[in-house]
């Protein structure tokens, strides 16, 4: 039993010490070439990604801006004004106000 314990302790010690015998590993001489290739791929993918993503964002921005503008115009009553203008024009036509205005202008120019 005691011998077994000594054996185990010895094995553990030898195994722990085996770490000091690990040799440094040389780097593959083609590592930089491979790295350059990967960098190239990454930069290429980055460009492609930008190419795909940007129009999507642009389109989304245009849609959002159109929506915001539309909403703002509606809130400011822009569409109501057009209706009002239309009704004023109708009113002026109905009572021949526009014609009188033109005649007044002619009269003024003749007097000058």
């Amino acid at each position, binding site marked *: 039993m005691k011998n077994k314990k000594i054996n185990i302790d010895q*094995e553990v010690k030898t195994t722990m010490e085996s*770490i000091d015998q690990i040799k*440094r*590993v040389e780097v593959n001489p083609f590592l930089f070439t491979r790295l350059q290739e990967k960098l190239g791929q*990454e930069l290429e993918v980055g460009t492609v990604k930008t190419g795909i993503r940007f129009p999507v964002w642009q389109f989304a921005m245009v849609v959002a801006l159109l929506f915001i503008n539309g909403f703002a115009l509606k809130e400011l009553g822009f569409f109501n004004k057009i209706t009002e203008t239309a009704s004023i024009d109708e009113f002026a036509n109905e009572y021949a106000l526009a014609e009188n205005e033109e005649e007044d202008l002619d009269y003024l120019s003749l007097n000058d």
Partner: protein
Amino acid sequence: MDETQIIKQLKEGNEVAFKNMVDTFQEKVLNTSLGFVPSLHDAEDIVQEVFLEVFRSINKFRGDSKLSTWIYRITTTKCLEHIRAKKREKRKSFFQSLIGMHENVDRIKVFDYNHPGVLLENKERSKTLFAAIEKLPEKQRVAFTLHKIEGLSYQEITSIMETSLSSIESLMFRAKKNLQKTLGNFYNNNNC
């Protein structure tokens, strides 16, 4: 050329400076990676990942620590990420095997042990040691690997792990104790 100038050139995207930096650190990064992931194929993938990360993040490097410290920190992070990803893969395969989607779970290993720096006569012993290191908690594993395999001083490990010297001493002490315990159990079960 001093380190500040090298960093400045790297930030400017100087290709020669980048190559020089890779030449200077590639051996350190590879051997550290092999300390965490004792498979040449996986370690070489990590080396590439580390330098790609350096390339991507050099503009974020403030120069608060040495360039070597920063690169060691990236290496450690990449190695731990790689280990976690492999473990996730193994867990996924295990669950797939439970529902019959994977044929044989025994074939799935986290790593194929293939450390080219280990002498043939020490191969089995080193394999046992690396299996024991793999069972250590993450912080103990990092401190032990950087000190015992990469040969860094406690002071350097303090900067890399951004912790105090006493913490590193404590991590090293506990790592050694845990390894002795794991190895003791292993040899006891194998009727040494």
